């Protein structure tokens, strides 16, 4: 008898184990059990005991597949109510314009689900109940109710309510086409879908799957049931694969570089508190949340791209300590608070203008006849924008390599590769442009780029910046890098110039952004400054060293609390470094003078990298006569590059090179000396001292600047 009891207990335990396992997978214990006896389910009938009957009927089904019995939604689901994006459009992806209503049409299977989930048909509206035909429009199971329903209909208070506008929901009725590509001038971007597509209606009917409408389209299509199995809630939310680590999403979506990126590897804890409590981001770390840290497959605020929030707010993520918002932990790149500064890229101030792949559409924007509006790259009020994703690729970005060491304004050492994207983990996979000039001759000095090559992934940092800061987006200028752009000037009185024009290595002088000074074709010897004229780290590899735009432009407190990079700054032109003022002092009115330079003024921007000893400006030099002359009496006020050697500007220059149209520039002719200490009066023709025709072929020396 004792043994009998023992055996009985074991048997009961086994039975319980089997039941509980089955229970997790069976519809019986899910929210899709709307029957009276469903356990722990909020929405259910007060009388009906059958489970399958809410959706299926074995005879007289309509539509017949899959033996459907629920009254169908009559919602139109036309274009504009379905997911759409510039990205898909520009890829030439076949974007659905409606949800099919026949079994052989794409979208039909999703309509089955929507017949409850769009809220237009009552949950209990089935065609027939045990042989009794329903009166159309009157739910034959009339007592389905619970939180999230009103009058038997699913309402917006239910998280499963999708409504009749599916723009904020993952596309359905859409074909799976991993072959789609978009060609750039350099490189090609794929649609980043797994080349091995999920099975089309596999048997057994499990996992992520596709469906093939019989209407001649050979491709598998995504429907609701690709990601959801309405009968199986093992993974939660009836998902066909788990959410953690992006398992479900990455079955199809294979973002290049994703697996090594910081957003896939970060162990930073997810903070779902505060205004994020409703987001229910899964997992305990960013890596576990993976795709779902930023994206929401349904009903996110940010459309398109299924973002949880609108544009940059997806990155900031409200009060979350995990992301890039004002409440972020400092180590997590606290970006939002930087954008409170005065001078900034308009990520937070301009919305709704960014479009994906806009770099390919600087002016012509969309295909002829497309009615989506005019959005691309440009400075007009209709297109001007700068969002996080214009400079960062969140699917590829990483925290390594860090180009700058903590507490440092500059890299620890520089060489010919210092302008490359590969130096910064924050910048891979971002589109860009490379300006082109037809040759190396003087013909191409100080002119607008004659061509631009689009890059799928920028190789150099400047390629990202030039997307906007060049004639590529500014439009064609006539004679100077600012001609025609004045109207675009910022309210903060910052002139926008064609920086590609300025950093062209065919110019006679400039900063080594595109290439080292030795490669400046039209620069007269000596092309480079001596090491003694430079401060660390810029005193090594002079002539071959290159730099980022963001070595000069960035946040004013990059070495302190601010996240690095030219997001925003309290300094005009976002000048960064120990000295942050140019061409005027911190008072905003007084121009820097040679005497300031000789005194080693630490506020003076140029002083960050350029040494004031051992050259023409040196305190020991016999140049006291120049002490009260302004820096901008000789040098262009926008020192990216210049038509003349050593960033000298002639009095014929226009604003903003000739600063503030005050006729600041005095020089009319200039000749570069053989060394920084060899300058003589004759090298400089000014209104103060005239020398013999320095700007003509008769000036008598090498390198007389035209």
């Amino acid at each position, binding site marked *: 008898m004792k043994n009998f009891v023992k055996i009985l207990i074991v048997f009961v335990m086994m039975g319980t184990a089997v039941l509980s396992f089955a229970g997790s997978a069976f519809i019986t214990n899910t929210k899709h059990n709307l029957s009276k006896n469903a356990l722990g389910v909020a929405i259910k009938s007060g009388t009906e005991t059958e489970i399958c009957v809410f959706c299926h009927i074995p*005879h*007289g*089904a309509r539509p017949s*597949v899959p*033996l459907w019995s629920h009254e169908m939604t009559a919602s139109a689901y036309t274009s504009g109510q379905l997911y759409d994006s510039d990205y898909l459009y520009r890829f030439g992806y076949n974007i659905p314009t409606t949800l099919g209503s*026949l079994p052989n049409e794409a979208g039909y299977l999703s309509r089955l689900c929507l017949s409850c989930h769009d809220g237009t048909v009552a949950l209990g509206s089935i*065609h027939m109940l045990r042989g009794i*035909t329903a009166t*159309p429009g009157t739910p034959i199971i009339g007592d389905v109710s619970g939180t999230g329903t009103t009058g038997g209909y699913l309402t917006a208070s239910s998280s499963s309510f999708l409504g009749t506008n599916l723009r904020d929901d993952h596309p359905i009725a859409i074909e799976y086409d991993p072959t789609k590509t978009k060609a750039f001038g350099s490189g090609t971007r794929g649609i980043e879908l797994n080349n091995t597509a999920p099975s089309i209606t596999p048997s*057994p009917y499990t996992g992520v799957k596709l469906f093939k409408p019989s209407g001649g389209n050979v491709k598998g299509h995504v429907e609701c049931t690709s990601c959801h199995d309405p009968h199986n809630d093992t993974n939660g939310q009836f998902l066909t694969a788990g959410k953690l680590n992006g398992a479900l999403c990455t079955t199809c979506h294979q973002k290049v570089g994703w697996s090594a990126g910081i957003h896939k590897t970060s162990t930073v804890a997810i903070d779902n508190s505060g205004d994020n409590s409703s987001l229910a981001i899964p997992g305990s770390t960013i890596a576990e949340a993976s795709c779902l840290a930023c994206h929401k497959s349904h009903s996110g605020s940010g459309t398109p791209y299924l973002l949880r929030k609108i544009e940059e707010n997806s990155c900031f993520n409200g009060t979350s300590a995990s992301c890039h918002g004002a409440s972020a932990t400092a180590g997590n790149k606290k970006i939002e608070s930087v954008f409170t500064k005065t001078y900034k890229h308009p990520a937070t101030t301009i919305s709704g203008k960014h479009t994906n792949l806009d770099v390919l559409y600087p002016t012509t924007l969309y295909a002829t006849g497309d009615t989506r509006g005019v959005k691309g790259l440009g400075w007009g009020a209709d297109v001007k924008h700068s969002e996080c994703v214009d400079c960062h690729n969140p699917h590829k970005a990483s925290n390594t390599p860090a180009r700058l060491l903590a507490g440092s304004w500059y890299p620890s050492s520089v060489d010919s590769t210092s302008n490359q994207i590969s130096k910064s983990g924050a910048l891979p996979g971002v589109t860009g442009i490379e300006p082109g000039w037809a040759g190396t001759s003087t013909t191409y000095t100080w002119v607008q780029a004659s061509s631009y090559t689009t890059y799928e992934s920028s190789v150099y940092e400047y390629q990202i910046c030039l997307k906007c800061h060049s004639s590529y987006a500014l439009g064609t200028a006539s004679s100077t890098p600012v001609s025609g752009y004045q109207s675009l000037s910022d309210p903060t009185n910052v002139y926008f110039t064609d920086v590609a024009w300025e950093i062209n290595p065919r110019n006679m002088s400039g900063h080594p952004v595109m290439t080292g000074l030795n490669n400046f074709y039209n620069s007269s010897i000596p092309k480079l400054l001596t090491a003694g004229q430079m401060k660390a780290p810029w005193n090594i590899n002079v002539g071959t060293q290159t730099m980022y735009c963001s070595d000069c432009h960035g946040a004013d407190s990059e070495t302190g609390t601010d996240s690095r990079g030219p997001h925003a700054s309290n300094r005009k032109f976002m000048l960064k470094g120990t000295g942050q003022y140019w061409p005027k002092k911190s008072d905003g009115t007084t121009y820097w003078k040679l005497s300031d330079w000789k005194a080693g003024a630490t506020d003076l921007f140029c002083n960050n990298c350029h040494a004031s000893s051992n050259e023409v400006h040196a305190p020991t030099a016999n140049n006291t006569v120049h002490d009260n002359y302004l820096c901008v009496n000789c040098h262009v006020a926008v020192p990216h590059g210049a038509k003349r050697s050593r960033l000298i500007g002639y009095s014929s220059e226009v604003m903003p090179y000739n600063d503030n149209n005050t006729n600041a520039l005095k020089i009319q002719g200039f000749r570069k000396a053989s060394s920084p200490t060899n300058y003589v009066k004759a090298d400089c023709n000014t209104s103060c001292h005239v020398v013999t025709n320095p700007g003509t072929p008769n000036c008598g020396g090498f390198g007389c600047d035209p």
Partner: protein
Amino acid sequence: MKVGAKRRVLVVGLMILSMLGMAVVAQGTILNSKHDLSKSGGAIGVCAFCHTPHFASSVTDVKPLWNRALQSFSTYSMYDSPTFTHQNATPSTASLMCLGCHDGINSAAPTESKHVLLNVGGSKYTFSTNFADANVNCNSCHVGGTSSLKQNLQMGWWYNPDLSGGAAAPLTIPGYEKNVINGINLTDDHPISMVYPSNSQFVAAVSGKVDTLPLYGASKNMVECPSCHDPHNTTNGLFLRKSNAGSALCLTCHIK
């Protein structure tokens, strides 16, 4: 025998008795069911509408002394879905016998008419078509006083509210109520004449049965009408072989 053992025997015995009692007492037989097409006092017995002890159908596999000719439609449209493709172009005889009435379509061949029995009283019997046949309850199949068939016995048509005499359903999506269907349309009915699947989404069959539901065919592995329906028993309603409360009938096979 100990007292406890005695008590166990008693309890088990009572349980068996009560189960038997349920089967016997319940109003579960064909008598007065919808399958009883006889008219009180009519000459044709209840069974004769389907069965005959002599001169039964000689069609191979038509075992239960069938009193009707199998209809010989050449074309059927069988249920297909993205996950299921029909295996036979026509139903097997086990289902064809049911469809002989339930396809809802009168054969062009007079001998196959639904109004013809092979043998009643030693001769072929044809029902009167004037709705006044003394021996047949016409209303069993027809909406009273009309030639319209009762909607829920027609498996061969797409459901069409007009046939039921009811209000037209608000089918605003074109195509749901009609489709181009060849021959007898079984596309809106649970698949039949299909091999019972053997995979993780179906309860395994044991000895030609899934729980108590029988499979048919030479290998006893085919799902047919009588897998779910027992035409002689109304205990569970709709001639179901077991109660579908809690969708128990569906879940006998389907692991969902």
